[in-house]
């Protein structure tokens, strides 16, 4: 055998196997590698499920609406900037006695305007539903005073003050988004892995493979033995032993 290998050197077959991918083949690949797709999907779904089942701190949001009748857009912008200035925030902390840093408070506060008008919304997000409106109202009060003191602008009026909701709803209700993301990611990764394994797999699978790669005529393909074919396995086998019961 080994001698044959040494003596016999022949150029490899010029037939280059070409991977043609069509939908039918894809379906076959998915069917064949279903286990890996199912495995990655289940794995990532479990991870996503664990992530989304983690207890999260519920956050509550309240807001106040104020009117800033500024003369120019520049003035309006400058006044709005004041809302989140450390000067204002430090006074808020000092006055209300809450345990927050100026920087932390700054991140809790957001300022927006309604449809480019002079109506401005000041929102605060806080884990404590009772504290949030207090912070908002303190900010509005201090801010009005500071603007008046430093810019000499006195036209700010409160449209709606922040009030504590009787039954506050958190703005981040528990969601199963991570679970869904896990399932989708699992499907995608599983499909990718299946196709990767398929492209790495160089076993012969079809009569066409045999003719194309091996260059040998295919006489036929024998399908898998169906389970229904082997019903009454032992009885049938005995028929062989007994003789020509069926067949021929």
């Amino acid at each position, binding site marked *: 055998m080994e001698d044959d290998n040494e003596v016999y050197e022949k150029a490899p077959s010029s037939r280059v196997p070409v991977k043609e991918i069509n939908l039918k083949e894809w379906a076959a690949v998915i069917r064949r590698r279903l286990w890996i797709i199912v495995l990655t999907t289940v794995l990532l779904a479990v991870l996503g499920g664990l992530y989304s089942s983690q207890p999260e701190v519920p956050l509550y949001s309240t807001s106040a609406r104020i009117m800033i009748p500024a003369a120019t857009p520049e003035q309006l912008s400058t006044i709005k900037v004041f809302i989140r200035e450390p000067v204002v925030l430090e006074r808020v902390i000092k006055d209300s006695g809450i345990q927050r840093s100026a920087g932390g408070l700054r991140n809790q506060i957001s300022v927006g305007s309604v449809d480019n008008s002079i109506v401005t919304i000041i929102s605060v997000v806080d884990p404590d539903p009772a504290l949030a409106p207090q912070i908002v109202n303190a900010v509005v009060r201090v801010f009005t005073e500071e603007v008046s003191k430093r810019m000499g602008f006195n036209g700010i009026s409160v449209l709606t003050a922040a009030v504590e909701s009787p039954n506050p709803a958190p703005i981040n209700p528990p969601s199963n988004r991570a679970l869904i993301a896990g399932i989708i990611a699992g499907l995608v990764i599983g499909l990718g892995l299946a196709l990767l394994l398929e492209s790495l797999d160089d*076993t012969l*699978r079809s009569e066409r493979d045999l003719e194309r790669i091996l260059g040998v005529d*295919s*006489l036929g*393909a*024998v399908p898998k033995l169906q389970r229904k074919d082997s019903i009454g396995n032992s009885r049938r086998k005995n028929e*062989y032993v*007994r003789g020509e019961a069926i067949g021929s």
Partner: protein
Amino acid sequence: MKPLAHREKKLDSRAIYGCFIVHNSPTAAAAEQYRRIRNNIRIAAGKKERISLVITSPSPGEGKTTSAVNLAVSFAQRGDKVLLVDANVKNPALGQVFSIKQWPGLADGLASNMDFTETVYPTDVERLSIVPGGSHLPGAADLLDSQAMSEFLDRARNEYTVILFDCSAVLETPDAIALAGRCDGAVLVVSSGKTQQKKALEAKRLLDFGKVRILGSLLNRG
């Protein structure tokens, strides 16, 4: 080197059942395919009335014996007088498949002056006789490429119209190629999803070098 110890192939009842699918379930899809392959072999072999074939595969365990038995039964059903020979002398399985003793068989027949007919066993399938692998004799593989083998083939060709050899794998031993050179050709059994392209191509290369005529391949999805 593989140890020369006599390996007894263990076949479960399902595997043995699979060998007789053509006999026991003539309407099964697999049986239809074996009959189609039988006809294709006839076509590929040309107008020859008497044919002798080697059933082999690139690597062991790809379904040689199952294919050989089913093809033998298919030929017998068609009306051919069939002799199925277990040429896998190192690892014979036919005796177990047909529930007969493994010897005296081919190896004994070739090694001694035993009469040809003493190694041939009739089976319950009409027109099908088999020759089991025989005793495990040292150098049994060389017997397959001997003068005795030529005499055996001449005898068999006179009495049977179809002779099938259930051979060892091409990449395992040189027996299949040596034997196929004396026969009309070889049928290469390839297991779907199991046989690697590399191995199949290597087997094809060895068969081509041995000037073996490959009648065709049989894709085994079982």
